């Protein structure tokens, strides 16, 4: 049973965070309603006509999506490490930090070279 205590705690924290966000945004957020806001969000019939053939995506979508995939997929190496974290100890931590640093260097490069700028 002890095994499930961390999961229960995590679920509690997650639920609490979600509730907190909802309540906080209701209390603190500005309330301005307009036409766009009251429209269906990502459901129902599309209110604006799309260009014929689906239209083309600007290259910046592609750039962002690609960068996302590369950084996203690195994360799969963190899962096996997290599972065996106790067994690997300091060694595993140091190696993982090195790995993250290498990924971070790539991120810094992308950032400095303007890969993250939308316009």
């Amino acid at each position, binding site marked *: 049973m002890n095994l499930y205590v961390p999961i229960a705690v995590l679920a509690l924290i997650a639920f609490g965070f979600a509730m907190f966000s909802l309540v906080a945004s209701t209390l603190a957020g500005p309330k301005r309603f307009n036409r766009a806001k009251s429209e269906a969000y990502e459901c129902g019939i599309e209110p604006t006509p799309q260009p014929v053939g689906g239209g083309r995506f600007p290259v910046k979508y592609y750039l962002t999506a690609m960068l996302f995939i590369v950084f996203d997929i690195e994360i799969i190496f963190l899962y096996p490490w997290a599972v065996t974290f106790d*067994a690997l100890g300091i060694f*595993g931590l140091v190696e993982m930090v090195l790995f993250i640093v290498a990924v971070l*260097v790539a991120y810094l*490069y992308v*950032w400095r*070279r303007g890969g993250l700028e939308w316009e």
Partner: protein
Amino acid sequence: MNSQLLAQSAVQAPHIEYGQLAPMLIVFGLAIAGVLVEAFVPRRARSAVHAPLTLVGLAAAFVATVLQAGTHHVAAEGAVGVDGPTLFIQGTIIALAFVSSLLIAERRPDTSAFVSDAASVPGTQEERESLVAGDVQTEVYPLTMFAVGGMLLFPAANDLLTMFVALEVLSLPLYVLCGLARRRRLLSQEAAVKYFLLGAFSSAFFLYGIAMVYGFAGSIRLSEIALAVSHSGGNETLLLLGLALLGMGLLFKLGAVPFHSWKPDVYQGAPTPITALMGSCTVVAAFGALLRVLYVGFGGMQWDWRPFMWGIAILTMVIGAIVAITQADVKRMLAYSSIAHAGFVLTGVIASSSQGLSSTLFYLVAYGFTTVGAFAIVTLVRDAAGEANHLSRWAGLGRRSPLVAGIFAFFLLAFAGIPLTSGFTGKFAVFAAAVAGGATPLVIVGVLSSAVAAFFYVRVIVVMFFSDPNPDGPTVAAPSLLTGAAVAVGVAVTLVLGVLPQPALDLAANAAAGLFVR
């Protein structure tokens, strides 16, 4: 099921021998440092930081390799084999990468081989602006270092998964580097697309081969595959299929016929310093990996793969030599010559003995340095549109600049295997090993195709020295210190290995004596 598996293999912290992996770690560290330089150093200063960093780092990696001499050990929990042949190959790759980096570091805007802004479309205002601004391309340095790091890991990989990752780490930067030429950008981009599509296709075959071998042996570790092969029991179909697919992937990288069609196009289209890098380092690394796979993993089934390798070696030598005759472009001709040489080296590989291994190692050193030197000369012969690569433009070069033409002729004679050059010693060594291994018919084909190859090398020499110079022909750019040094190293190694080959032969024999670690 999975929880059972996890419970069976209680996880223990792995033991990593950082000292034995130092050459690779240094080169990958250099690559990452290079990315940081790209991110934080101002554009103007980058190239001044990159070039010394790269050269000093490669020298350090070379020292680290030499310090490992005598090691015979499987490092990193069985992923990387550190042994005589591997260290010899790694040292060769680092030395060749150093010389190629001298060419890459050629920075004067008029002679730099790389486009300043690879994202700009050829022939647009954007491209012209960046040309006028005198920008130079600096991302080539980290890309080259990533590729070299992959090349170092490729022949050292003791399990097939590590080998696949190394293959991709060396290939992906090369695909990009091929598309960065400053002049004739359409050709360069086309070469990059061709190389990429065919390279990705072949590495998919390589990967599927690994999956099949894993299905047969239940392991991707070469030593355990060798065990499974010797206790033949499992599914032979999977094994043979896997070996065939693996071989396809490896033979593609070294450009053996019938997997050679990318080589002339890519060698011609890529910036010449990158062609030098591919023609020397990549070939050495691919042969190292092929040797390890065949000797360690599948040594027990020599009688299955030998006939096929015979056929491929014969095809590679003959087709490489014959098709080279019709080439009118210097870089294409050197590409076909590289294909023919891959065939010569394969005769040494097939011998599958310690002698075959040592002669292969020697041949790779000799051929690598001659190749880098020859491509360094190609960068020097220029006209208004950049390098003048068409052979007709080289007519009469020997009368205008006897020194450059003479050195190029010397390299061509080394390719042809004329005595007193390294090419002769190398060919002699591999053919002797092949005869000792009982492959005399192969050697006869090899000698005959050498004779055919000698014909087109000599034809270039005749064109350079015995025809009248073209009035508006290309000029020979005065070599800068860097290019000059690359040419000098090429000449020196080619000459020394031809006149005094014994120390190098002994070194190769020593390195090969212990064979690969299992």
